[in-house]
C-alpha cells in the first residue's frame, strides 16, 4: 500500500494537545499532514458518536489528545474519556474494526515533540493497517 495516504481525524483538547500541536508547528517540527484537527473544549467533549461517524464516513484513523491525568481543565473530563475509549474499543472490536485505528494520548501544551512523534507513529501505524474497509451493506 505504497501510495495510501490515510485520512485521520484528530480531536484535540484546546487546553493541552491543541497547544502542543501549535508548539510543534511554531517550532517547525516535521510530522505527516494526514491529520485533520478539530479543536474541542475538553477530551470528554468528544462524543463516541463522533468517532463512529468519522469511521463510518471512511476515516482511516481517529486520534484524541487530552490533558495528562490530574491536569484536565474541568477536573475529571479526561478520566471519563479514558473509560469511554476503553469501552468504545470493546464495541468497535465487536463491530469488526481494528481498534488500533483509534488512539488516545495525553499530550500537554509543552509537549510539541511528543505530539509530532505521536503523529508520525500513528500515521505510520494506519498506513500499515491500510484503508478502512468499505462497509458492505448489500
Amino acid at each position: 500500500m505504497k501510495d495510501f495516504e490515510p485520512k485521520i481525524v484528530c480531536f484535540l483538547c484546546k487546553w493541552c494537545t491543541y497547544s502542543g500541536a501549535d508548539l510543534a508547528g511554531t517550532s517547525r517540527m516535521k510530522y505527516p499532514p494526514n491529520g485533520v484537527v478539530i479543536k474541542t473544549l475538553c477530551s470528554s467533549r468528544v462524543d463516541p458518536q463522533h468517532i463512529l461517524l468519522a469511521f463510518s464516513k471512511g476515516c482511516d484513523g481517529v486520534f484524541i489528545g487530552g490533558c495528562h491525568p490530574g491536569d484536565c481543565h474541568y477536573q475529571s473530563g479526561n478520566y471519563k474519556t479514558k473509560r469511554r475509549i476503553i469501552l468504545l474499543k470493546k464495541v468497535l472490536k465487536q463491530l469488526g474494526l481494528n481498534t488500533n485505528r483509534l488512539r488516545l494520548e495525553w499530550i500537554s501544551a509543552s509537549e510539541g515533540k511528543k505530539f509530532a512523534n505521536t503523529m508520525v507513529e500513528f500515521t505510520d501505524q494506519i498506513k500499515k493497517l491500510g484503508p478502512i474497509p468499505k462497509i458492505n451493506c448489500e
Partner: protein
Amino acid sequence: MAKPKIAFYWCASCGGCEEAIIDLHEDILKVAELIDIVFWPCAMDFKTEDVKNMQDNEITVCFINGAIRTSEQEEMSKLLRKKSQLIVSFGACSQLGGIPGLANFWDRESIFASSYGGKCPSVDNPDGVVPQEVSEVPEGELYLPRFHNTVKTTDQVIDVDYYLPGCSPAPYLTMQAITTILSGDLPTKGTVLAPNKALCEVCSRNDSKPEKLSIDKINRVSLVEVDPEKCFLAQGIICMGPVTRSGCNGENDGRCIAANMPCRGCYGHPSEVHDVGAKMVAALASVVGLEDEEDMSEADVQKLLDQIVDPAGTFYRFSLAKSYFRRKIMTDSKEEK
C-alpha cells in the same frame, strides 16, 4: 366519500407486531367502520396480485412491520410504497432492524455456514443442503428470494413517512397514529409518533439515583436479587433508559421497569441521539468506576469494563441496522496488538 384504505404488511418479523394490531381489541372496531382494510396477509386472504392491480397511491396508509432481510421483502415494500400515500414504519424491526438486525454481526456466508453447514444444533441437515435462489425440478425452475448480506430497516429501502416505535408498538400509540392520520391533520414527515423524552425522565426510580452515581460492579438481573424501587443503573444493572425513547407505557414507568426488568431499548432513541450504542458507551462510561477514578490504572478500568458481557449486542440490541456502521465489518481483522 370513499373510505380511507388501510394496509398492513410484514417483512422479517416475529408476528408480534401483527399481534399488536389485534391488541387494539374493540378500539379497532371504532375505526373499522371508517376504513377499508385492503391488504393484510397475516389476517385475511389477499394476494400480491391484488396490490399490483391497485392504482398508484390508492392505499391511504400502509403499516409495514419487520426488517428487510430478503429480496422479496424489499420488492413488496417498494410495491406498497408505490400504491400508498403514506407509509408507517411499524415496530422496532422495521424502524431500527430490531432483533433480526442483530444478524448484522454476521454476513450471508457465515449465517448459511452455521445454519446449513451443520453448526446449528437444532437443524438436521445430514446432506448439507443449502437453499438455492434457482433450482431445477422436473416441472421447471423454482425460485427463492435472495437472502441479503445485511438486514436493513424499512427506510433504508423505501421512503418512510412516519415511525411507530417499539417491540411491539403500544396499542394506545397505534390508535393515536391511526386517528391522527384519519383526521388529515398530518404531522411533519419523518416524525416518530411517540414522546421524545428519554425513559429515565418518566421513570419513578430516577430519584433513587444518587447525585454522583458510581458503579463499581456490573450485575446481571439473573444473578442478583433486584431491588424493585431502586434505579437499575444504581444497582449496577445495565438499563438502556438514558438513551431510550419513552412512551411504551404512557407517562408511567417503562413496561419492563414496571415488571422489575431493566429497559433493553426497544423504543429506540430520542431524536437527539443518532447512534444508540455509542451514546450508551458515553452514558455508561460516565458512571462506571467514577468513585476512584484518579487512582485507577488503565488495567483497572479495563477489568471493570470487561464485566460487561457483549457490550455491542447489549447496546445495539434493537438498533444495529440503524447504527452508523449498520453492521459488522467483516474484513478489518488484522492482528491487533
